[in-house]
């Protein structure tokens, strides 16, 4: 059963009067618990695809179904609710709220969701900060952290609501390769432990290697889909 289903989706951008086709007739199904990497050169349409799946943009044609809901049929409010309760975002450039502490940044989605006591929230946030290894920075502001640390905060913020789906657009692009590797390991562990579905884009081959499945995208079209786990199993036999 797939959590994301992209069906014959096209996306055109208007650049002045010229139409820029960013995605052309893309179809993709992502199953629950996958750790899917979208790979492709710069400008190939990775961000566009993630934006559509993340319900922050709408396709020019085709359907995007997330957690069983046809996103075209949802109101702006309902889409926001879907993002809040079902999806976690990890941005390439972190996008933390600069005036809030690390703890408050991670707590924020829980506050938006509502319905939890302060104690419940604190427990969840601290456990996650611990898991991503920045518990000792809980009271710091984002500006006091390194890039890797900020990306950990962003991961914690994306995971704190225990979303079914986490989207990460080049989460390691702004990090050195060692820190990037750590971040991928961290995401992978969350995926393994909680069964959270991850879809992340990258053009770094080392990062792709960790994926359970690899979708290659070129010039707005999906050129291949490899099941790396199956290949590993086959290779190990």
């Amino acid at each position, binding site marked *: 059963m797939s959590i994301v289903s992209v069906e014959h989706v096209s996306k055109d951008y208007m650049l002045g009067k010229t139409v820029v086709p960013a995605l052309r007739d893309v179809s993709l199904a992502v199953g629950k618990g996958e750790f899917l990497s979208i790979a492709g050169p710069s400008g190939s349409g990775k*961000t566009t695809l993630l*934006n559509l799946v*993340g319900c*922050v*943009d709408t396709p020019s044609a085709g359907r995007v179904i997330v957690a069983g809901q046809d996103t075209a049929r949802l109101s*702006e*409010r309902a889409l*926001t*609710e879907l*993002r*809040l*309760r079902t*999806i*976690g*975002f990890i*941005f390439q*450039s972190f*996008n*933390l*709220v*600069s*005036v*809030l502490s690390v703890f*408050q940044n991670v707590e*924020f*989605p829980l*506050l*938006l*969701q*509502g319905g939890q006591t302060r104690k419940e929230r604190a427990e969840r946030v601290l456990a996650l900060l611990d898991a991503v290894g920045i518990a000792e920075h809980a009271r710091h502001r984002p500006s006091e952290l390194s890039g890797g640390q900020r990306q950990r905060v962003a991961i914690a*913020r*994306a995971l704190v609501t225990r979303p079914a789906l986490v989207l990460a657009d080049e989460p390691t692009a702004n990090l050195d390769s060692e820190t990037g590797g750590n971040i991928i390991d961290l995401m992978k562990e969350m995926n393994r432990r909680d069964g959270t579905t991850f879809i992340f884009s990258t053009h770094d081959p080392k990062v792709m290697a960790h994926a359970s499945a690899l979708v290659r995208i070129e010039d707005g079209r999906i050129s291949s889909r490899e099941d790396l786990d199956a290949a590993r199993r086959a290779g190990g036999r």
Partner: protein
Amino acid sequence: MLGVDLMIAGRNLARHTRRNLFLGGALAAVTALLVLLGALTAGMESAMMQSATTLMTGHVNVGGFFKITSGSAAPLVSQYPRVLEAVRAKVPELDYATVRGRGWAKAVSEHVSMDLVLAGVDVAHEPTFRKVLHVVDGDLEALAQPGTVLLFEGQAERLKLKVNDVLTLSAPTARGVNNTADVRVAAIARNVGLLSAFSAFIQADTLRELYGLSPATTGAIHLYLRDPRDAARVAARLRTALAEAGYRVMEPEAQPYWMKLMQTVPSEDWTGQKLDVTTADDEMGQFKQFILALRVVTGLLVVILMVVVVIGILNTLAIAIRERTREIGALRAIGMQRRKVLWLFVLETALLGLLGTAAGVAVALAVAGAVNAAGIALPEAVQVFLAQERLRFLLDPGAIAADALVLAAIAVAASVFPARRAARLKPVTAMHHVG
């Protein structure tokens, strides 16, 4: 959640200290100006009404007009002791009552003449007279003697008179002849604003003699109430009561008696005696209009300044929204609703508005307090105009709070438009924006 919202709003304000200090300072300045001008106007009004309600009018007056022919009119209440008795019985709110003659005469000194509105007074029965009159030369008690007059400084100067000098009063009587009387200047008092420009006080019986009136006749009965705010109610009650007692009572009209004497009453088709019940507000209508005009000017000034502040708010928020586009987009992407974005920006401005106006009120209170305490004397010319010797601010907590809240509300209202624009930002646009 509100705690975190306030924290975000407060810290975002603090992040751009300079421009927000500037904006908050501008708002504070407008608030301070509004509060101070309001307090100054209120101070003038209070000082003016205080001297006016002693010198020119009671809180409620029972005056009247006597017409021998329908084309003439004299400001008279005949058989006033009976009227006074009827009035006392109907006004339990009464503190005290005084009886004033009303008249108008040409004052002639050796070289000059001028028109004076005359009030006939019995100083022995004027309990608050000496509180509002500053006698600079002569003696107020001397005004008890027959044939005496009290002038204000400006009049004495114009007529070139000193205490104990004699001047001639020439008054047109109801019969169409001019009576004259020589009176001695018993005292000269300091000017009290516009009032003292045209009115003078004369011993009550001397005024009666000048007009050839009986001792039972006077111009008006001034009623002073324990609480002046009862005036309108008492006046209405008296009109009914006096009418029921058989007096002819005029319809209420908010004009000073001398306007009625000159304009409306002579053109009315009746003869004999009619009573006219008025309040201080009726008698001081023109001064009230002057105060109103002052308030309007203050209001216009504040409106103009607030336009500047509002432009500042629009500008500042536009900058803030541009700077935070990424952040807003990210928050929208992780599930913040539009109205929440709107709320955060409005809250930020509300906080700035409250801090700014509060600072403005604090400054205004400090300035007003210092000025009141210092007792700064006003220049002579201004004194006459303001009916005050010293600059005095009358601070009314209710009015100040209302001023501050209105200005803060305007600031908040101004923020709604840019905040809506921020709320409409598409989350994806926000993410594309690389800053």
